[in-house]
């Protein structure tokens, strides 16, 4: 008797039992179920939610692997100094870098998935519904949007909060209002701000360097945005050149640094028709628009050079897309279908506002120079409103048509000649 038959018998044994959802989750992971259609269309398309989620994960894997290399690269670079002439294979794609990244990031991934899926399983068993696939993507996103040295217990607490309050209380996957991954990040940000921002969290070992070891100040690494927010204007080009920012050889959250790989992931998601290109394109347009406005303000000399906003405002408008979490947020977070706008027109507005707000918050937020996650969470809240107005447009068209409706009187009543009535 093969594995397939054994599992089938176990499934029958579990049927109707409390633990059935837990078993089914594992079973359907191994084998696509033997379910056949019983109402409506007798044949069905090939895609299911697992496949959809899996596609997003595939798009994220390059960012994860790059993040591992970059963690090592930033760590050793901060200790030993960065190489004068950079060579991809000699300095970046090295075993040392990867190993350093692996041992720091893998625990984040394991905790994220382990805790999150445990919560999902518990809820599925209690509520008696199947384990839904939403967390497969969330669990992968979470390690990619946190600083590399985040203590694991904090991550665990945040994941529990995010999954329970962000998703399960609304009814699970498909019902939530806020993006669970961003809810987790927001929780971390407001509960443990010292671990989530500043110039000591982005490079592995930097925090230890401050708190424990005698060689204080051994490692420091700040993000490009952090550097700008402190009022440094000119130095940015010396510190990192554009290629560094585009390829991602800069400090930052684990998966957000490589704009190139995010771009490739985004193109893959658009090609596979899993994520909305409308949201991505309009978000890019939105961020460029806000960036241009700020550049314009600087060019018009409306703000003095000593203003604390000056350096971020004067940052070249399109370079906003290369630094921080903007690109990552646009491609992987804003396109979440559950929390985003659901109508095609709504998606244009929704995406545009995310890009627009992200850059705005980024520039005007004094404490923490990043606004993507706040902008997306804000627009998550407004997405139903945007959809409402789009759908009302459709309703209005229908009502307009109604004015010319042709309604004839009932045969039993209308002995007189049929005539067109206008309502």
């Amino acid at each position, binding site marked *: 008797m093969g594995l*397939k038959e054994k599992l*089938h018998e176990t499934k029958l044994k579990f049927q109707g039992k409390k633990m059935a959802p837990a078993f089914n989750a594992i079973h*359907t992971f*191994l*084998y*696509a*179920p*033997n*379910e*056949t*259609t*019983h*109402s*409506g*269309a*007798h*044949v*069905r*398309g*090939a*895609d*299911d*939610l697992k*496949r*959809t989620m*899996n596609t997003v994960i595939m798009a994220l894997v390059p960012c994860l692997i790059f993040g591992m290399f970059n963690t090592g690269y930033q760590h050793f670079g901060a200790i030993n100094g960065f190489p004068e002439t950079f060579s991809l294979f000699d300095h970046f794609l090295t075993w040392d870098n990867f190993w350093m990244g692996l041992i720091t990031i893998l625990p984040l991934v394991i905790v994220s998935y382990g805790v999150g899926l445990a919560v999902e399983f518990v809820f599925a068993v209690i509520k008696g519904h*199947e384990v*839904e*696939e*939403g967390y497969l993507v969330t669990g992968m996103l979470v390690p990619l949007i946190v600083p590399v040295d985040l203590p694991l217990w904090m991550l665990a607490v945040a994941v529990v909060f995010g999954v329970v309050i962000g998703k399960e209380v609304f009814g699970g*996957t*498909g*019902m939530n209002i806020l993006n669970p991954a961003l809810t987790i990040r927001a929780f971390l940000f407001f509960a443990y701000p010292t671990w989530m921002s500043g110039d000591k969290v982005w490079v592995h070992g930097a925090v230890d360097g401050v708190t424990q070891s005698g060689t204080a100040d051994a490692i420091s690494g700040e993000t490009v945005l952090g550097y700008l927010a402190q009022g440094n204007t000119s130095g940015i080009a010396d510190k990192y050149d554009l290629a560094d920012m585009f390829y991602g050889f800069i400090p930052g959250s684990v998966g957000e640094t490589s704009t190139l790989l995010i771009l490739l992931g985004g193109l893959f998601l658009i090609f*596979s*028709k*899993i994520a*909305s290109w*409308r949201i991505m394109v309009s978000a890019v347009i939105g961020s460029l628009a806000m960036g241009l406005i700020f550049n314009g303000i600087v060019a018009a000399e409306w703000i003095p050079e000593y203003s604390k906003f000056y350096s971020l405002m004067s940052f070249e408008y399109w370079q906003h897309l290369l630094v921080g979490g903007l690109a990552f947020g646009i491609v992987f977070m804003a396109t979440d*279908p*559950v929390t*985003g706008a659901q*109508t*095609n027109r709504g*998606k244009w507005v929704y995406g545009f506002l995310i890009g627009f707000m992200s850059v705005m918050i980024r520039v005007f937020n004094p404490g923490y120079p990043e606004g993507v996650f706040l902008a997306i969470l804000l627009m998550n809240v407004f997405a139903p409103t945007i959809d409402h107005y789009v759908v009302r447009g*459709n*309703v209005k*068209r*229908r*009502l307009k*048509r*109604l004015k010319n*409706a*042709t*309604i*004839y009187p*009932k*045969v039993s009543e*209308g002995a007189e000649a*049929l005539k067109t009535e206008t*309502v």
Partner: protein
Amino acid sequence: MSKDIRIKKGLDINLVGAAEQTTSKAVLSNVYALNLDDFHGITPKMLVKQGAEVKAGEPLFYNKSREDMQFVSPVSGELVEIVRGARRKILTLKILADKTQEYVAHKPLDVSAADGDSIREFFLKSGAWPFIKQRPYDIIANPDETPKAVFVSGYTTAPLAADADYVLQGKEAELQAAIDALSKLTPGKIHVSVGKGGNSVLSKLNGVQLHSVSGPHPAGLIGTQINKIDPINKGEVVWTLAPQDLIIIGELLLTGKFNAERTVALAGSIVKAPKYYTTKIGAEISTFLYASGVNEDKYRLINGDVLTGSRTHPEGYLGFYNNTVTAIPEGDDYEFFGWNKPIFNKISTTRALTFSWMQPKKKYDLTTNTNGEHRAFVVTGQYEQVFPMDIYPLQLLKACMVKDLDEMEQLGLYEVAPEDFALTEFICISKQPHQQIIREGLDLLHQEIG
């Protein structure tokens, strides 16, 4: 004068086993049956008792809420069984057919001289009326209403469905008579659609507004065409008829006989020799299924096409409205890592390691497997790709699920029938039962408002 309708959004589901365009005469069925589920929303009141002898075209029962709407026997014979279900609900009426068929002889109606009232009366008593369906609500038309227009679709896009061009051949006289009679029942137009570049006898009809339609499924569905030609507003009524039913109506008008004969496509990958058969409404499916032969023992037999048909079995009977019978493989097997491995043999609208986009002309052998489990709605923007009406499908489905009558009305539930949501159901990633949701929504709206 014909008008062009071009549908861009949609999806053609190309399946293996299309019926070859040759017609055989099916073996005569011993027993014929009417399945009362075909008449949605009708409460039957029996007119004859079990064991009674009936002629073809003789009323078997009437509609409880409209006594003059009679439903007739497709053949002459003995009413051998009234199958009842829970709470004595009548499910099926079985008639043991006579060797020589006798018909109720109505006086043929001279349509050109008749007025609307006499035509209506003729349709109601002769059993032709149930072929007329109405929207809103997708039910048998209410004889008390005057439709603003009548729609007939002669363009076939549903997978493996009987090709209207083929089954209507040589029936010009009947079709014209039926159209003439219907035009007396509405001051509006009779809209008839044909496939662009097709060879339909419908294009030769007089007194109709002809439309030539092109594009992928659901371009052939009447709901899609209504939406493009003259969408239904609140309070309006339109009638829809299937062209093969016009033949029966036409013959009834011309000869006074209810001749339930129709050409049926037997299709699907399970059928060894898929082709057309002439048989009668209510005939046992095995009478022609086994003439063509089946490849496997275990299969799904469908009264209708794979998207909208109802499940049946070889001992089941041809449905009142169906002219397609499809047999496809059952898919009740597990598939190892079925959710993440590349898929080449199934149809998908995404490209998430699914490769049907590379071979749009390829014919697929789909099974009844759901390819995944039922989930809440997650993905957005998918349905719109295959839904050509000016309606927000996801929002309308959700309105039906939460039973929000105002929303259902405002978002256009009056314009749709369950079949319009068959394609969105097919591609649904969350495997939601769209047609059932719409059916329940329509019933609720009908009950509360209509």
